């Protein structure tokens, strides 16, 4: 069960965008923005409030890679695997990060809720390939070594 505060927050967001089916995506985005993920219970709640079926809302939420029903870590690392980054070896970076953090294709977030590692299809910074972002901050021309250094730095930052 979610805390009542989640529903109050959802009510505010719904009121802002209006009780319309077309508000579904912006509402989901803002909820995700607030909690770093989209709690399933809230999706059900929003669907009912704006008059779309739960299955339809779930359909939209799963269609877009961006929405996540899993709580995400403090640092969200997105490794670009667009064409340019891919040919400049982004996958070894991803693999190095996953190995270091004990993550995999299925497990995106560390148990301590510190790191989430995902891939994106293109960050639009192909000239800086291979790139990755940490909470929207862009890191250009990455290598597996640089990525691991960054992790160490972020961990230290947290101590």
């Amino acid at each position, binding site marked *: 069960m979610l805390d009542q505060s989640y529903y109050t927050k959802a009510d505010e967001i719904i009121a802002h965008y209006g009780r319309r089916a077309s508000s579904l995506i912006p509402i989901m985005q803002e909820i995700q923005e607030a909690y770093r993920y989209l709690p399933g219970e809230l*999706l059900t709640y929003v669907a009912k409030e704006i008059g779309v*079926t*739960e*299955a*339809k809302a*779930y*359909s939209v939420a*799963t*269609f*877009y890679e961006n929405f996540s029903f899993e709580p995400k870590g403090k640092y969200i690392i997105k490794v670009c695997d667009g064409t340019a980054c891919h040919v400049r070896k982004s996958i070894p970076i991803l693999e190095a990060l996953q190995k270091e953090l004990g993550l995999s294709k299925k497990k995106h977030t560390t148990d301590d809720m510190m790191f989430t590692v995902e891939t994106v299809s293109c960050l639009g910074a192909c000239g800086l390939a291979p790139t990755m972002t940490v909470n929207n901050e862009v890191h250009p021309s990455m290598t597996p070594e640089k990525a691991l250094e960054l992790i160490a730095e972020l961990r230290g930052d947290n101590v």
Partner: protein
Amino acid sequence: MGFMTIDGRKVEFTDEKNVLSVIRNAGINLPTLCYHSEVSTFGACRLCTVEDDRGRTFASCSEVPRDGMVIYTNSGRIKKYRKLIVELLLSAHCRDCTTCVKSGECVLQDLAHRMNITNVRFQNTRELRPLDTSSAALIRDPNKCILCGDCVRACSEIQGLGVLGFAFRGTDAMVMPAFDKKLSETECVSCGQCRVFCPTGAISIKTHMDQVWDAIADPNTRVIAQVAPAVRVAVGDAFGLTKGNSVMGKLVAVLHRMGFDEVYDTAFAADLTIMEESNEFLERLGKGSPLPLFTSCCPAWVKFLCDQYPEYKENLSTCRSPQGMFSAVIKEYYRGYEKNQGKKTFVVSIMPCTAKKMEILRPNSFTNGQQDTDAVITTTEIIRMIRNSGIEFSTLTPEACDMPFGFGSGAGVIFGVTGGVTEAMLRRFADKHDKATMDTVAEAGARGDEGIKEFSVTYKGIPLNICVASGLANARSVMENIKSGKKHYHIVEIMACRRGCIMGGGQPPRAGSRTKAARSNGLYQADNVTSIRKADENPLIVSLYDTVLKGKTHELLHVDSY
């Protein structure tokens, strides 16, 4: 209005919604998997793709007819496309055809035959997923789903529920309830329309045939069948008989031959329902209890109301459904040792409905803690059981139902079609039974296959507003109108499936508009040739109140709560 050239032949078209309809009306059976005229056009299966004179290919279901179009439906290129599409669909489909419940009725299987596909060149890369067997009525096998979306649209557009939806994207796309919940955890009402729309075996009826065969094989069990009205008009065509004609006599004969000890007509219990429900209505009217009175024969509707509009539970008739009443009466009749001769009684109800399988498990379908109906067999299953037994159905000599519950009035028979319950009730309210009176009742406004019908009649000087609706999306509109105070009714009859039980979720699928009309005509004809057309004049009902039902009317025929 205009002309188009289809495969070199000039074809006139009038108000067809799309090119596909023009092509089909011109006698070319273009295949489709996702096109149903009753729901929105989806354009996903691409099987109806045709080519025009400029070499452009397009899905004919999604193209508006234009004057002067030149269309090829069978060019070399189109044929190749069509075959490839089916091959690709098959590649991601569980192909255990011989053991699939849908075998023989499967659209995909038919297409594979039609396209002459003898080899599928592509590997199935989809992960094997578990079956959802949680529902009392339906089984969902995601491995047989071809993502045509027919069930999704049936559930949301016709039934206004939207339990099923697409999830994920691209090669990961699947049809499932939200959060991949089990059907039993959703607001699914077990109406089975998804199963009727599903072209493959991805959604099928949970069968109980084996249970029935076992009961029949047991010499210490008395197996009793009750046959619902809508079943008799949907079995014949499976055995080459005229579509829609009632084959009740043959059904009784075949059930006897299969080993059922007694066979009864649920129309008898429908008469009983009318007696109780009309009394209840008059009582409510007199006492000023909550109105409108909602009919309670349809379990899918009852669940819909309890889930979606629980504040109106009070308005639901407390009458059990005809199935429920009948089973309770049969069980009561055989309760004493002398009557049952030491035998166990097993009641099988043969129904056009999947939701009935759910209804028998409802706590309020039990009498004194005992389940009244032991198994529900849908029309689709009884056809299979008849085939299984090898008895030649079409040449059987018709037989009559057994006694003492073997006769239903014409009023009971029309329960299977939308408006039938209302008409039966109005007949009960009529003080005469001559043909002219019956004709007046028939013309009051309950008949016809519109989704929502409204009309008024006068009973002893009181004007009664009546609403008859079928399809749960229509039921939702009716409920919203009542809730907002826009409409005031005295009686509301709802059947969850469009057109009523004749199009129920357990009926043989793939019924076109001709079949729909034939089934409803079939029931009205069966009613027409019955001498007793009022429930209250059924002599068996009259005597039942003096015998089995004496002092037990409420216990056996009503529910205490929903």
